[in-house]
C-alpha cells in the first residue's frame, strides 16, 4: 500500500481544535451540573474563544502553506476569516445569556452548538479541499438548524428551523453534486485542480467543470443568501431566536464568503463563463435585498433583507478582486466583512432587548419606546444604523467607499453605480428602525423590553466602538488583513502544491 502519512503542523489547526474542545468541555459541564445556570459555560466559552483568537493572531505573518495532507491551508484569507468568526462568536456569547433568560430558553446547548458552528465555519475558510469544505459547511449548517429551532414553544422558531433545514439540505445536495462533477472532471478533490486542469482538457471536461463550478456556487450562494437562493433568509432570520439570528447572519456569511472566494479564485481561468452570471446575481442581490426590505414591518426581517443586500456589496468586492487580482486586493472584502459583522451583530443585539418574560415581539411597533428604556443600547443602535446606511465616519461608509473604488478600478462601473443607488434606497428602511426605537410608547402593541444586562452593554459597546475604530484605522486594518507584502494572487499559487493529481484520463 502506497500511503504517505500526512504531516501535521499543530499551530495551524490549533484554533479549530481549541474551539471544538471548548464546546466538548461545555457539554461536559452541562452533563455534570445540569441544575446550574449557564454562567460557567459562558465564561468557559469566552476563555476558549479568546485562546482560539490569540492562536490565530500568532499565525499572522507566518508563511503560507498546507498541512494535514493538503486538507488545511494557512493563508491570509483563512486567518482573517477565522479571526472574524471567533470574534463573532465571542460577541454573540456576550449578549446571549441575558436574552435567553428573558426569553426563558436558556438551554446550555446553545453554547457548544454555537462553538461547533464556529469551528465548522473555520474549517470552511481554511481549506481548498472540496470535501473538507463540505464537511465544514455541514458542521456549520447543522448546528445552525438546531439553534434556529431552539425556542421550542414558538411555532415561528420551529418553522424557521424546518425551513432552514429542508432548504439547506437541498442546497448542500446541490453543492455535493457540484463536487462530484468537479471530481469527475479534474480527478482531484482540490479546488486548485480546476485552475491547473482547465487549459489542458477537452470541451467535454469543460462542460463538466462548468456544471461543477455552477452547482458549487449555487450551494455557497444559498449559504451567503445571494439572490436567486435567498428565499429562506427573512423567514429563518425572523423565526430564530434573536441572538442566533445575529450569530447566523454574521458567521454563516463570513464562512460562505470565505469558501466562495476560494471557489471563484480557483475558477478564475474560466471566468468568461461564470462572470456574467455572477455579475447579474450581484446586481440582483443588492437590488432585491434593498427593495424587499423597504416594505417590511418586522425589524428582524428588515435586517434579514439588509443582510442580503450587504451580501451583494461584499460580492462586488469579491468579483472586483477576481476580475483583476493585480489591481484590486482583498482588503475591501475583509474590511467590509468586519464592518458588516460588527454592525449586524450589534443591531441584532439591540433588537434582542424586545424579549421579556418569555415573550418577544420584533415588529417595528414592538420596539417603540426602546429609547426611554435602554438609552445606551439605542445610542449604539444609532451607530450601527448610521454604519449600515453608510454615513461617515463609520466603518460601513469606509467599507462601501473601498468597494466602490475597487469596482471602478476593476472596470465594473455598473456594479459601482448599482451599489451607490442601493445605498441611497437603504436609508429609508434603516431610518425606519431608528424611528421606531425613538417613537414614544403610546400606541405600541406590546411595549415591553428587557433591562439590558452587562453582557449586552459590553457587546454593543464593543461593536459600536469597533465601527468607529475600524473607520479611523481603515488603512491599518486593510494592510494587516491582507498581509503587508504578500498579494493574494501569489498566495494562491504558493498553496497549490506541485504533487497534485493531473487531469483524469477516462478512456
Amino acid at each position, binding site marked *: *500500500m502506497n500511503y504517505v*502519512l500526512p504531516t501535521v503542523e499543530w499551530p495551524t489547526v490549533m484554533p479549530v481544535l481549541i474551539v471544538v474542545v471548548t464546546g*466538548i468541555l461545555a457539554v461536559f459541564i452541562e452533563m455534570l451540573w*445540569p441544575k446550574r*445556570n449557564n454562567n460557567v459555560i459562558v465564561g468557559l466559552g469566552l476563555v476558549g474563544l479568546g485562546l482560539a483568537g490569540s492562536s490565530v493572531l500568532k499565525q499572522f505573518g507566518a508563511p503560507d502553506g498546507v498541512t494535514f495532507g493538503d486538507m488545511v491551508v494557512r493563508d491570509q484569507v483563512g486567518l482573517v476569516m477565522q479571526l472574524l468568526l471567533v470574534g463573532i462568536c465571542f460577541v454573540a456569547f456576550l449578549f446571549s445569556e441575558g436574552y435567553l433568560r428573558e426569553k426563558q430558553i436558556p438551554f446550555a446547548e446553545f453554547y457548544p452548538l454555537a462553538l461547533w458552528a464556529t469551528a465548522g465555519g473555520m474549517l470552511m475558510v481554511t481549506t481548498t479541499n472540496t470535501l473538507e469544505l463540505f464537511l465544514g459547511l455541514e458542521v456549520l449548517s447543522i448546528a445552525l438548524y438546531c439553534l434556529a429551532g431552539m425556542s421550542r414553544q414558538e411555532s415561528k422558531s420551529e418553522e424557521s428551523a424546518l425551513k432552514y433545514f429542508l432548504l439547506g439540505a437541498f442546497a448542500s445536495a446541490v453543492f455535493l453534486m457540484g463536487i462530484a462533477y468537479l471530481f469527475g472532471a479534474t480527478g482531484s478533490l482540490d479546488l486548485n485542480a480546476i485552475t491547473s486542469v482547465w487549459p489542458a482538457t477537452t470541451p467535454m471536461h469543460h462542460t463538466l467543470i462548468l456544471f461543477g463550478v455552477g452547482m458549487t456556487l449555487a450551494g455557497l450562494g444559498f449559504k451567503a443568501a445571494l439572490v436567486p437562493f435567498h428565499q429562506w433568509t427573512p423567514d429563518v432570520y425572523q423565526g430564530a431566536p434573536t441572538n442566533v439570528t445575529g450569530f447566523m447572519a454574521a458567521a454563516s456569511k463570513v464562512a460562505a464568503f470565505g469558501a466562495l472566494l476560494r471557489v471563484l479564485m480557483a475558477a478564475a481561468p474560466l471566468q468568461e463563463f461564470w462572470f456574467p452570471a455572477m455579475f447579474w446575481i450581484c446586481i440582483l442581490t443588492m437590488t432585491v435585498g434593498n427593495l424587499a426590505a423597504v416594505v417590511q414591518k418586522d425589524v428582524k426581517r428588515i435586517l434579514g433583507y439588509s443582510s442580503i443586500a450587504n451580501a451583494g456589496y461584499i460580492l462586488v468586492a469579491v468579483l472586483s478582486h477576481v476580475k483583476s487580482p493585480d489591481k484590486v486586493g482583498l482588503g475591501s472584502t475583509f474590511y467590509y466583512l468586519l464592518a458588516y459583522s460588527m454592525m449586524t451583530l450589534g443591531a441584532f443585539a439591540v433588537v434582542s432587548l424586545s424579549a421579556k418574560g418569555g415573550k418577544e415581539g420584533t415588529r417595528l411597533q414592538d420596539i417603540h419606546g426602546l429609547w426611554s428604556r435602554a438609552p445606551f443600547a439605542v445610542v449604539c443602535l444609532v451607530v450601527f444604523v448610521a454604519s449600515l446606511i453608510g454615513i461617515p465616519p463609520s466603518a460601513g461608509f469606509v467599507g462601501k467607499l473601498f468597494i466602490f473604488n475597487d469596482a471602478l478600478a476593476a472596470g465594473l462601473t455598473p456594479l459601482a453605480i448599482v451599489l451607490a443607488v442601493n445605498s441611497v434606497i437603504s436609508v429609508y428602511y434603516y431610518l425606519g428602525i431608528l424611528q421606531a426605537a425613538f417613537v414614544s410608547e403610546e400606541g405600541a402593541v406590546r411595549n415591553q423590553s428587557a433591562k439590558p444586562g452587562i453582557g449586552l452593554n459590553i457587546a454593543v459597546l464593543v461593536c459600536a466602538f469597533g465601527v468607529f475604530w475600524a473607520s479611523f484605522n481603515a488603512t491599518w486594518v486593510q494592510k494587516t488583513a491582507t498581509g503587508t507584502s504578500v498579494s493574494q494572487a501569489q498566495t494562491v499559487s504558493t498553496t497549490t502544491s506541485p504533487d497534485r493529481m493531473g487531469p483524469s484520463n477516462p478512456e
Partner: protein
Amino acid sequence: MLGDFMPILVLVCLAALICGVMVVGSYVLGPKKVTPYKSSPYECGVMPLGTATERFPIKFYLVAILFVLFDIEVVFLWSWLTIFKDAPTDFQVFSGVDVAVYLGLWIVGYLYIIKIGALDWDEATSLAPEKLEASATVAVPAQASNQEALA
C-alpha cells in the same frame, strides 16, 4: 466520454419506457368499475378506521435519528477496518489514533444522550428552572414563580 455513460442512459430510458408503458397501458386497457369500497385507502383488506393524520409521539423520530447516527458510525469503522489489517504499522498507529479520537467524540455524544434522557421513553426533557436564575444558588420562592411562568 459520452460513450462510457451511454449504457446507463439507455438503461434509464428503457426503464422509464417500460414503467410508462405498464402504467399507461393498465390505465387505458383496464376496466374501471369504481365502488366506494374499492376507492377507499388500502389497509391490508380491512376497512380503514379513523383519520390518517393521527398524531404520534415525536420520540420515534429522536430514537430513529440516534439509531441512524450510530449506524453511520459503524459504516465508517467498517471501511477503516478493511484496510487496517493489511496496512503498514505507521498507518495503523496514525489511523488508530484518528479513529480513537473519532470514537471518543461519539462516546461524548452517547453520554450526553443518556444524561439528558433522550432514550428514556417517559422522560420529557424540559428546562431546569435553575437555568433562569442569575446566581448559581437558587432561592426557593423564585424557583416556584419560574415554574409557574414556564407552565
